[in-house]
């Protein structure tokens, strides 16, 4: 995804989009920090198409996502189904904001598919971490936004096939 822009510029877009969408969608303010999520976490993952081959993953404390879901649904408790539904829609909107900002900066459209939700941590196959942005809220619940790019070997293999 960042073939068309510097890593710093991409990080800035991701950071701004995450903070804006989280506050607007769920009323939670996140700030960058260095404490990763704990062991009880959930992951949402999106893959970008049109040859980008990159992906974005959000790993967050389950308690953080549950609070965001409760705020958004205006409910005191949320079910597992609500948590998954909220997480997918939130990440869908977040990725839309990110790709929209990238499009304005580069005129390159990065379309993406349906978000996939996992309980626990998920590592996409054939990809490696390019960078991680770590966040915490005022209750010290954590989240990480992870940008994955194709592994060098995978990219080389694909080039050899063409």
């Amino acid at each position: 995804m960042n073939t068309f822009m510097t890593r710093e510029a991409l990080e800035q877009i991701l950071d701004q989009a995450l903070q804006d969408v989280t506050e607007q969608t769920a009323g939670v303010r996140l700030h960058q920090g260095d404490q990763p999520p704990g062991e009880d976490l959930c992951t949402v993952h999106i893959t970008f198409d049109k040859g980008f081959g990159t992906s974005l993953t959000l790993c967050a404390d389950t308690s953080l996502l549950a609070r965001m879901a409760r705020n958004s649904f205006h409910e005191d408790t949320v079910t597992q189904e609500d948590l998954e539904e909220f997480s997918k829609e939130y990440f869908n909107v977040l990725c839309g904001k990110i790709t929209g900002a990238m499009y304005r900066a580069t005129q390159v459209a990065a379309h993406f598919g349906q978000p996939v939700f996992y309980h626990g941590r998920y590592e996409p196959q054939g990809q490696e971490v390019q960078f991680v942005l770590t966040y915490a809220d005022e209750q010290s619940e954590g989240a990480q936004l992870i940008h994955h790019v194709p592994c060098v070997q995978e990219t080389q293999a694909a080039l050899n096939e063409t």
Partner: protein
Amino acid sequence: MKRRIMVVDDSRLVRVQLEDVLQGTDYEIAAHCRSGEDAIEQYAVVQPDLVTMDIIMQGMDGLDAAEIILKNHPDARIVMISSLAYDDTFKRAEAIGARGFVDKPFHQEQLLKVFGQALR
């Protein structure tokens, strides 16, 4: 009398958000369809004044569903609400006859403006 809206979105969250921003306005949610296929079936039953249509959904996407609804009901007023805010998406939505486009996350002012334009 309030204008009746049929919400087409696979997320319940979007319905909740729309209910929030439409509170106290001249619009009410008459139905919520969670797929394009459901929307095609329900349109004739609900007969809404306006349809809000997501694009990325399980099964048929919102642009295809909007195209079919407009083919069957040329007077349908459809506004796309999506996070896929690109020129190519705008152009396809316009080409099939959608009356407007709102990108997520949406604001009340922006939404009401597009709804008003779509219903002119």
